[in-house]
């Protein structure tokens, strides 16, 4: 227990040290302290995984409370941790990506006035994320959940002087709060149903409440289904699933290392983690699980389609993240939790890589533009082109990441995405087949938009003034080295889940592989019902998913390298479609009208119309009348005193009416 507790404690100590005393020592010490802490946590996390592997991933797993946090009557919840294979995998992913981002940031944030503040937030985030995955009960999970959210808020708004950044941070927080509304109610319902919030108790008793119903809006709803759906609302917020996806693209206002760590690799996968963690519950609530799968599948396709036409390099990646998270929910909803978790891990590596690469591009282009006195958006790919000459290392690693996400064998994305598609197909019902089709279509789009990005950024002629050309150059070693490391993992991380069809993980000396390793962490519900696919079908599926990946790349090449004018013409040929996609289906505009502005208007109207006009208006109106009467009858009276007595009376009448209404 104590060794494991050090994993989150180290970043926490780094946060406290830099936060409280950071101004007393040179700023380079702030990144040294933060980086040392996260590297040490990484080492301990790897040790944890090795420890579990040597036990073949079977229990008993570490589980216990450090202290009682909140207790009142029969309610009791502790601060406690649990380490099972799922947590162990998450520990390595979180500390691994975090380490890479820490190193990278020393280069990326160099010269930023908020350097120390940045590393302080990074440490706090790493701690919070580790707390989230280590928690042994729902409330502590919620604590980590909220803390990563608040770190995200501060880091999105890191350049707070920029209005759009401050707006984006606020938006992220509030949209997440909408999700947490569901999550919170889910936690209430879990406690009322089970009398506990501990994972052990809840999961062990889950089967006993199957068939139990609860009244909701006059309907009888299965309790377990409702719990799962409420929890999933939380997951939709955190993992940016439709219709709560709107905050993630805006979150790109944050520094790019933050986008890589928080908004691609770790925090946004918390929703997937949560659903996988609650696999026992979702297995017993098939309706809720289907909702998860459908929302995931829809989001995968929806976000990928938006990604097709975006011109901001980070926004393409943001929609790609939303889409890939959709894949994970698709898998989890179909009961393939292992596949979801596996994709979560591989995605963390290649998407973290892609973001850091895009950061390197933006960093160089921005400096180049700045040095050349060019005023242009350094994130807009229409201002780029031909950068592979200036940035060869970034280019090569970027291509590795793109090939991985496009599902080209033998890279990591191939193994995990293919597994998800195969499991969907093998699910054996219409829903599974439909979602398989959706997944294949989204895979085609993924390969296309990724290579559209590569070609627009690195190939062709530079679409910026010539004087900037010589000013754009490769990033410092502190930034390229993490890229190489992540590229390496994007190549090989898939082998822990090497397809059975190609010999399985044991072929590449990975024992039984990650699925077997993770299996003890999950319930074994309806996933077990999936059909075994015949070898021919399996080969066909794999061939198809590779084929769509290659096709996507080929189309992108034809449009953006072969004949760039064709891409423009294509957009002109379907102006409506292009406009809808470019404007993200106008979801933001819709929300602004029906939620944001409506609530603000309602607040203003209520304030002016009710609080000031009605309440104080009745007050003053009645007061004047009474004062006049009073003035006529008794000159001694000072108006105001009586006025408020009248107000009081009015209030009492209101409450008396309400009270007597309920009395009857």
């Amino acid at each position: 227990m104590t060794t494991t507790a050090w994993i989150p404690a180290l970043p926490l100590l780094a946060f406290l040290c830099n936060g409280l005393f950071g101004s007393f020592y040179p700023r380079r010490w702030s990144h040294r302290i933060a980086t040392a802490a996260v590297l040490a946590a990484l080492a301990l996390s790897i040790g944890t995984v090795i420890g579990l592997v040597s036990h073949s991933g079977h229990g008993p797993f570490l589980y216990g409370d450090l202290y009682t946090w909140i207790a009142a009557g029969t309610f009791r919840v502790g601060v406690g941790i649990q380490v099972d294979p799922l947590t162990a995998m998450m520990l390595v992913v979180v500390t691994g990506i975090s380490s890479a981002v820490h190193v990278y940031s020393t280069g990326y944030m160099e010269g930023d006035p908020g350097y120390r503040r940045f590393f302080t937030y990074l440490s706090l985030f790493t701690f919070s994320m580790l707390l989230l995955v280590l928690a042994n009960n729902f409330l502590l999970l919620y604590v980590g959940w909220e803390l990563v959210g608040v770190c995200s808020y501060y880091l999105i708004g890191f350049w707070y002087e920029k209005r759009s950044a401050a707006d984006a941070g606020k938006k992220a927080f509030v949209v997440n709060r909408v999700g947490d509304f569901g999550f919170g109610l889910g936690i209430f319902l879990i406690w009322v149903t089970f009398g506990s919030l501990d994972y052990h108790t809840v999961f062990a008793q889950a089967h006993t409440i199957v068939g139990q119903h609860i009244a909701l809006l006059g309907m009888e709803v299965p309790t377990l289904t409702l719990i799962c759906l409420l929890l999933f609302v939380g997951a939709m917020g955190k993992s940016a699933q439709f219709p709560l996806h709107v905050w993630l693209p805006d979150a790109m206002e944050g520094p790019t290392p933050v986008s890589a760590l928080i908004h691609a690799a770790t925090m946004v996968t918390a929703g997937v983690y949560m659903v996988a963690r609650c696999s026992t519950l979702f297995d017993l609530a098939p309706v809720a699980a289907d909702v998860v799968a459908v929302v995931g599948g829809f989001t995968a396709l929806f976000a990928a389609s938006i990604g097709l036409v975006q011109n901001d390099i980070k926004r393409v990646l943001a929609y790609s993240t939303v889409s890939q998270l959709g894949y994970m929910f698709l898998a989890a909803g179909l009961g393939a939790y292992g596949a979801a978790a596996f994709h979560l891990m591989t995605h963390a590596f290649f998407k973290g890589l892609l973001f850091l690469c895009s950061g390197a591009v933006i960093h160089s282009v921005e400096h180049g533009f700045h040095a050349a006195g060019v005023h242009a958006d350094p994130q807009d790919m229409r201002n780029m082109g031909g950068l592979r000459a200036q940035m060869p290392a970034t280019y090569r690693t970027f291509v590795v990441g793109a090939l991985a996400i496009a599902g080209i064998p033998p890279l990591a994305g191939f193994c995990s995405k293919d597994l998800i598609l195969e499991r969907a197909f093998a699910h054996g019902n219409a829903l599974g087949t439909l979602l398989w089709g959706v997944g294949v279509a989204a895979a085609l789009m993924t390969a296309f938009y990724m290579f559209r990005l590569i070609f627009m950024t690195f190939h062709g002629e530079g679409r910026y003034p010539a004087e900037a050309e010589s000013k754009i150059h490769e990033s410092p070693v502190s930034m390229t080295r993490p890229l190489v490391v992540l590229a390496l993992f994007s190549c090989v991380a898939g082998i822990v889940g090497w397809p059975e069809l190609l010999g399985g993980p044991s072929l590449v000396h990975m024992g039984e592989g990650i699925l077997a390793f993770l299996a003890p962490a999950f319930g074994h519900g309806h996933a077990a019902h999936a059909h075994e696919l015949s070898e021919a079908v399996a080969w066909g599926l794999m061939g198809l998913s590779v084929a769509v990946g290659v096709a996507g790349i080929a189309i992108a090449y034809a449009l953006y390298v072969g004949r760039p004018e064709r891409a423009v013409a294509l957009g002109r040929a379907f102006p409506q479609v292009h406009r809808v996609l470019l404007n993200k289906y106008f979801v933001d505009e819709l929300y602004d009208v029906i939620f944001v502005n409506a609530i603000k208007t309602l607040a203003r109207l209520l304030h002016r119309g009710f609080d000031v006009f009605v309440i104080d208006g009745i007050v003053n109106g009645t007061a004047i009348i009474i004062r006049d009467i009073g003035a006529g009858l008794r000159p001694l009276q000072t108006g105001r005193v009586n006025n408020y007595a009248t107000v009081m009376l009015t209030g009492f009448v209101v409450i008396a009416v309400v009270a007597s209404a309920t009395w009857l």
Partner: protein
Amino acid sequence: MSLPILSIVTFLPLVGAAAILFGVRRDNPAAARHVAFATSVVTFLASLPLAVRFDRTTAAMQFVETHAWIPSMGIRYHVGIDGITLLLILLTTLLSMIAILSTWTAVTTRVKEFMVAMLVLETSMIGVFIALDFFLFYLFWEAMLVPMYLLIGVWGGERRIYAAVKFFLYTLAGSVLMLVAILVLYVKSGRTFDIQTIAHLAPTFSPAMQGWIFAALFLAFAVKVPMFPFHTWLPDAHTEAPTAGSVILAGVLLKMGTYGFLRFAIPMCPDALPRFLPAIMLLSGVAIIYGALMALAQKDLKKLVAYSSVSHMGYITLGLFALNQQAMEGGILQMINHGISTGALFLLVGVIYERRHTRLISEFGGLTKVMPIYAVFFSIFTMSSIGLPGLNGFVGEFLTLVGVFHSQFRIFAVVGAFGIILGAGYMLWMFQRVMFNRLDNPKNFELKDMNVREFVVLAPLVVLAVWIGLYPDPFLAILHPTVNHLLAQAPVSVASLGPLP
């Protein structure tokens, strides 16, 4: 017989006030400040032994002192505390000390009188919490009004007279109702003012009689909370009050109302309670949403915080009247938390008000750049106010809502959870407009960051916010027996939905 520690804590500020009144010359404001602050520090230190020596295993009144006072009327000097009042007294002595220190440079006119008013106010507030005799209670209750009225009316802003009169009359009208209820209870209980005796006898009165008594008490306290729709005095009072006045008003005075519910309305009228509950829960739910919406519409920082108080007090009344252990303990803890967080927010507004003499949100923006330390404090209390886990607000809010969810008024837990979204909305929007965005108002370019005194004023509240957030057990443990005892008096039928599986 040990020291009459409660009386000492209660009357120490009064002694300090007398010392200033008679011992300090008007032209020596520094002396008045020093004596007042020293008095409040000593009072705070004197209140700490209450916590140390408090027996956490019993619901009985502790540190009881009882002396005959006016025997012919059955009036006694009878004081004592339980878990609820222990926490409230500690909050009072702490906030009084902090409030006095916060006025060091903010109050420059009639300093002597200001300090006397603050100290008299402290005595009467503590007196309200310790009184176990209705007459004594009423005396302190009314005594509390006068210094607060003066604080607003003399040291307030432009519309201070309006606000002070509004505050005074609203509260006075409530007090009149309370007085009627007290007199009825006095007569019906055989001419005793003893609160504990009455609490034993009152539940035996006829349900109709209990209904009238409850209605009178409820209205009296609802004004003080203030519950919707009696809240309109609050934004005015807060806006016009000097910073220290707002801190005490939000931190302690609003809690007088909820304390009244806990000590009188709930235990004395168990038969009447169920009939009123739906209305009370409804008003609480309305207050949460309505207060939040009002806060969204404000342009003045203090008004925004004032309306947020209406919303937060809605959670508290929701918790108290859900009548189960979790909700009630959550509600009481939230009384303390609101005192800490909202007190701190008013102090923070005071910091920039003292520099800029405006509270308009639109006058600010980008302050983080010039006031980084201030930004840290501001963000901590913003997060505390919107219930970030790890800070105090979350624990109380969660316990409240999980308890309400377990009561027959489940729907109001949903309302409360929805209010949390709005809470994040108005607080973060305010925070952005003040602390983020570009620093574009030239008047803000040279703003000085917080000085050492301001740091010292706010630091204890940060410590408390983190302490309660991470390890609330010492606070909750104080409450367990008292709340248990209180709920045992509440009507069983509404206490909860029944045992958990």
